[in-house]
């Protein structure tokens, strides 16, 4: 049945999601950090994890940004085809971003042009993806993506005949090259298949999956576990001080691809992985 909502509802929801994402660490990520702290034996790594956990506690209590890099705002709108939004949907979402960054005292990190580089002072524009799905609801997902880890993310087009082990090597090397820059322990999102852009898109979507959960496909779940083990064997450790946890988890999403290709994208996300989601 057709349903009508006002675009203001989109604005409010997007605003609330970004405020929550930037100040309240995801419970699954926090649980992952606490588990890592419990397992860690190296003194410096334990100290770093203690500070990271206490940071989440302070941020939540004071409604303060978990990390000063409150990121570039990415918004995913899955709009039910029987839903009518009164007003301008994309403008409403962007307004929600601007309000969240102002109200939340978040840093404005967006420049107007990649070469001219003048701060827009609103954290606008966001990146908005839309999708049409059945139903009369709208699903809104947001990511506040910091660039310390964005800068070390990588994509490569493999040969279709390359073994899964070469993908493992690619991901492990990406993390090795990144070192402690992306704020380990990280959550690694990987997209495999589709086209160049689809693989990148999947790698971002992958970090929405609850930490600790593996792919429903057995061969992919195996690959996730194997990559996690190899990344942790790098012993980069929390903030690079060494130790047993360099990554909290690995999440892979796949899509059918072309006979001639095997695109792979690695999206490294810091220990302050900031995503939120709501359906209205």
């Amino acid at each position: 049945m057709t349903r009508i909502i006002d675009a203001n509802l989109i604005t409010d929801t997007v605003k609330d999601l970004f405020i929550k994402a930037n100040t309240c660490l995801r419970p699954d990520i926090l649980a992952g950090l606490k588990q890592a702290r419990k397992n860690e034996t190296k003194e410096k790594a334990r100290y770093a994890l203690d500070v990271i956990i206490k940071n989440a506690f302070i941020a939540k209590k004071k409604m303060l940004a978990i990390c000063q890099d409150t990121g570039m705002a990415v918004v995913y709108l899955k709009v039910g085809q029987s839903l009518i939004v009164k007003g301008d949907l994309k403008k409403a979402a962007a307004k929600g971003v601007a309000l969240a960054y102002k109200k939340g005292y978040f840093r404005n990190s967006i420049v107007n042009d990649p070469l001219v580089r003048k701060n827009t002072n609103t954290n606008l524009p966001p990146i908005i993806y839309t999708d049409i799905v059945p139903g009369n609801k709208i699903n809104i997902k947001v990511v506040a993506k910091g660039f310390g880890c964005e800068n070390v993310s990588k994509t490569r087009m493999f040969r279709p005949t390359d073994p899964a082990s070469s993908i493992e090597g690619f991901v492990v090397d990406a993390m090795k090259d990144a070192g402690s820059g992306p704020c380990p322990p990280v959550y690694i999102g990987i997209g495999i298949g589709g086209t160049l852009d689809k693989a990148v898109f999947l790698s971002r979507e992958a970090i929405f999956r609850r930490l600790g959960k593996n792919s429903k496909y057995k061969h992919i779940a195996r690959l996730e576990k194997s990559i996690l083990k190899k990344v942790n064997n790098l012993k980069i450790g929390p903030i690079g001080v060494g130790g047993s946890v360099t990554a909290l988890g690995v999440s892979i999403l796949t899509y059918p691809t072309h006979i001639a290709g095997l695109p792979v994208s690695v999206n490294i996300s810091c220990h302050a992985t900031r995503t939120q989601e709501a359906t209205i």
Partner: protein
Amino acid sequence: MSPFAERRKVNTMRKIVLPLTKDIIKTLKQGEIVLLSGPVLTARDAAHKRLRDALKEGKKIPVVLKGETIYYVGPSPHRKGEVIGSCGPTTSSRMDPFTPLLLKHGLIGMIGKGERSKEVNLAIKKHKAVYFITIGGAGAYLSEKVKSAKVVAYKDLGPEAIYRLEVRDFPVIVGQV
């Protein structure tokens, strides 16, 4: 586990009073955790580019680098009554192309996150300077270690302006000496 477990560790850490001197730096060991108290300047990408351009053109720069410590940070705004918003380190390697020049002009300490280039590590040794690593992504925690903050140059750069911060018991790990 208590969220305050880090406090027990903090009580036993060595404290360093800023500004740094070559004599203090001599005593620092790579990998050692220390707590810094005193004044630091902030600067990140855009401010570094301006400093470099001015120095190359022989112009006067708005800060004195001699004996100074720079913290690579672009803080988030603060609420009324607070000193500073979230203020964790940004990736230091982006400042690598500018660092040897600043060291030549007297910069003695740096605070950031991540590894530095070979060239920068050599320059740090040559100038008897130090690179500290602090806890990336812990901007809320670190904001409690900042006691005052004031913009001193390049105000138009917003979060990328140069601030003078006064820090107390600010935790860092000696990355390179």
